């Protein structure tokens, strides 16, 4: 975001546009801005988050965080129907949440251009599955573009809006982690002037009752044929002829990896419009080369389509479906060349999985719950998934946004049938609760499931890097917004007042009492653990001088404090110590110490 402001200030010197280095996400935002897109709605999700954060910094646009991807998609869809160019952005699994409006908007088409960004996460750097969202395009029957670097993120975005309006279709814009989070050089362009188109009532187009939808389906099929012709003639799909012994069909980041490995020793068909595929161009290319490889990450999306056309090609026989692709893998799979390490060592580095931060407010309640060995804890998507790590080990399940509560209800029902008594504790954050936890909570009341829902209210959307949400009292732009009252919502869902406890998870005794009462309750129960994320700038500032220190005279080396799993603690040379650069004085370790050996300083 720092970058973006500087970009705007220096974008044009004497009519010559500047070259800047941008992430794919920054470039997609820039492309949408240059295309005259003026309405955006999204829910944060790695690796898509920074698209909206950057788009929001441009002048004259409207951008918002929505409570979830379905809402975001529908806001952007409505904006398109209203005549504005609009965009919605989400991570791959977010599109599952928004799949309902996706499939029907594919029928309704657009008024103002409408682009849907799906940022997939091959390798699952920060995701729960590795789904390849290219498959959504043929399923929903919409056009799809796939950029391979930041310049294309910007340029293709502008083309996406043109395609959308020309063919009356939303356009799926598919990125991956290495496109979204790699920086490459971009030449900036000019902002197009666009007007919001007039809104004309058109019930046959915008009301998908069966009678209208039946007609629409034929239109959609016809549209796909027109789009296929466009794909065949568009330079979004590019042939680069080199050595014709080897032909490579590829798209997205895989193109860069293929070029890295084969350079000029192969010919390429680089697919930029990956739905509908350019069948004539593919056939023509296949005829020009001796041996045809398809290099793509995850699913054999291109390969299957090419094989259906009756063309022989080699793809997933050699290139793995699972995991993120890279040049090493291509070199090994196709050329049978193993990239060799020059230097090796027998040093065994310790495993270093991600963990809850020092001073993380989630740690307190996880520590307390970890003492109850018979609890089944259903967790959710967010930093608190990390409660699963030892020594806390609090989490039995993680499925998707909001499933802590609803999944927990199911386990509770199963416990009943199976004559088991394990109490269910469902953990989810404030943002996840707003996203899709509320409906689960309503279900726990409606169908009388005496589970405990713990809302970890850290006043921010944490894992994705601190985005505002309906509970923080600020908009995407940091402007004041009404702050949703969590307790009032929980009450309105039907949880009884006496079954709601609000605790500060930094206070161990209070937290223990709340957990004990919840554990013994025979009705649906909610604990709201309220303490802001330790990484929020104002919190860091406020707590900068708070530290805990260990009095090694009093310390009995019982290591009870280490069992909180706080990374600021260490045990080296038989001495327990606290790293003052990491500690924020949350005092959890102080409260678990039975020998009064930990002191808080810097009040």
């Amino acid at each position, binding site marked *: 975001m720092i970058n973006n402001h500087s970009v705007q200030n220096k974008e044009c010197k004497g009519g010559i546009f500047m070259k800047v280095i941008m992430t794919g996400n920054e470039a997609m935002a820039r492309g949408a801005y240059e295309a005259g897109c003026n309405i955006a709605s999204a829910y944060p999700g790695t690796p898509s988050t920074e698209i909206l954060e950057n788009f929001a910094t441009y002048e004259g646009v409207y951008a918002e965080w929505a409570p979830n991807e379905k809402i975001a998609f529908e806001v952007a869809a409505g904006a398109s129907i209203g005549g504005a160019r609009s965009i919605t952005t989400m991570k791959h699994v977010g599109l599952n949440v928004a799949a309902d409006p996706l499939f029907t908007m594919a029928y309704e088409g657009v008024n103002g251009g409408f682009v849907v960004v799906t940022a997939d996460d091959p390798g699952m750097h920060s995701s729960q599955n590795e789904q390849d969202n290219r498959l959504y395009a043929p399923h929903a029957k919409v056009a799809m573009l796939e950029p391979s670097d930041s310049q294309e993120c910007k340029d293709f975005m502008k083309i996406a809006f043109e395609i959308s309006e020309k063919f009356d279709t939303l356009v799926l814009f598919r990125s991956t982690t290495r496109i979204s989070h790699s920086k490459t050089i971009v030449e900036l362009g000019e902002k197009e002037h666009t007007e919001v188109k007039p809104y004309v009532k058109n019930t046959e187009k915008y009301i998908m009752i069966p009678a209208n939808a039946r007609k629409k389906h034929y239109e959609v099929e016809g549209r796909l044929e027109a789009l296929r012709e466009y794909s065949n003639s568009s330079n979004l799909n590019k042939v680069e002829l080199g050595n014709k012994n080897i032909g490579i069909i590829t798209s997205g980041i895989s193109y*860069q990896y293929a070029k890295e490995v084969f350079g000029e020793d192969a010919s390429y068909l680089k697919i930029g419009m990956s739905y509908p595929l350019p069948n004539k161009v593919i056939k023509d290319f296949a005829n020009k080369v001796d041996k045809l490889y398809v290099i793509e990450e995850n699913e054999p999306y291109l390969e299957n389509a090419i094989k259906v056309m009756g063309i022989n090609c080699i793809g997933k026989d050699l290139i793995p479906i699972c995991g993120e692709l890279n040049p090493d893998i291509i070199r090994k799979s196709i050329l049978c060349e193993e990239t060799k390490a020059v*230097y090796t*060592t*027998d*040093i065994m580095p310790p495993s270093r999985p991600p963990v809850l*931060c020092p001073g993380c407010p989630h740690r307190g309640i996880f520590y307390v719950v970890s003492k109850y060995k018979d609890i089944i804890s259903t967790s959710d998507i967010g930093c608190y998934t990390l409660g699963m790590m030892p020594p806390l080990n609090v989490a039995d399940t993680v499925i998707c946004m909001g499933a802590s509560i609803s999944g927990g209800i199911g386990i509770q029902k199963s416990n009943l049938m199976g004559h088991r008594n394990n109490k269910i504790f469902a953990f989810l954050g404030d943002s996840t609760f707003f996203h899709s936890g509320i409906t689960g909570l309503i279900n726990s009341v409606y169908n009388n499931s005496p589970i405990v829902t713990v809302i970890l209210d850290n006043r921010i959307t944490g894992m994705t890097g601190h985005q505002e949400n309906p509970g923080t009292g600020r908009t995407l732009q940091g402007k004041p917004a009404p702050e949703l009252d969590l307790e009032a919502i929980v009450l309105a869902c039907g949880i009884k007042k006496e079954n709601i406890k609000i605790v500060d998870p930094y206070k161990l005794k209070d937290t223990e009492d709340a957990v004990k009462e919840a554990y013994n309750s025979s009705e649906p129960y909610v604990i709201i653990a309220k303490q802001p994320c330790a990484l929020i700038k104002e919190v860091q500032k406020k707590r900068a001088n708070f530290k805990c220190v260990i009095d090694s005279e009093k310390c009995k080396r019982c290591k009870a404090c280490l069992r909180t799993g706080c990374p600021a603690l260490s045990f080296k040379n038989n001495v327990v110590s606290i790293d003052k650069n990491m500690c924020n004085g949350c005092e959890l370790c102080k409260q678990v110490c039975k020998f009064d050996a930990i002191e808080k300083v810097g009040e």
Partner: protein
Amino acid sequence: MNNVKSILFVGVGGQGTILASKLLSEGLMKFGFDVKMSEVHGMAQRGGSVTTQVRFGEKVYSPLIEKGKADAIVAFEKSEAARYIDYLKKDGHLIVNDYEIHPVTVLIGNDKYPENLTERLKAAAYNTIIVDAAKIAEELGNIKAQNVVLLGAVIKALKLENINWNEVIESIVPSKAIELNLRALSKGIKA
């Protein structure tokens, strides 16, 4: 493509590898190189092992570095240098922050932190440079500036001093941190 150079930053989430590579990429671009940089966000940023990769030259395709092809590895944490040493090219520079972060797996006794790391790293790669970046940054007033000290060290190792790095820092770093970072860079180049 043969002239493409690759720098691998490795460390622990939160140590500032992203800012260091951002500064590096910006400077290399201004100098006229094609540059690609790849970073990782999200869950891995929470105290996990992280890498940031920078590649530059006349024309760069892959943002990812292959094994055995990094001209320099900059390890913000000592044991992370060992984890990624197989990416180092022949005669490549292994720049190591003399700083240990023991992961929770070690704290709770599930794993061991290796001993005599400095000596063993030096024995593994002859071009190993140990930089006391954390200490230097702390003396300058903020341990967070260790990333820019290490940036200075890699600039020196790859002989990139002729790029105007001060201008890059001034254009990217928030104004109140510019002075600290300029001093950190100069210390790093001299280290």
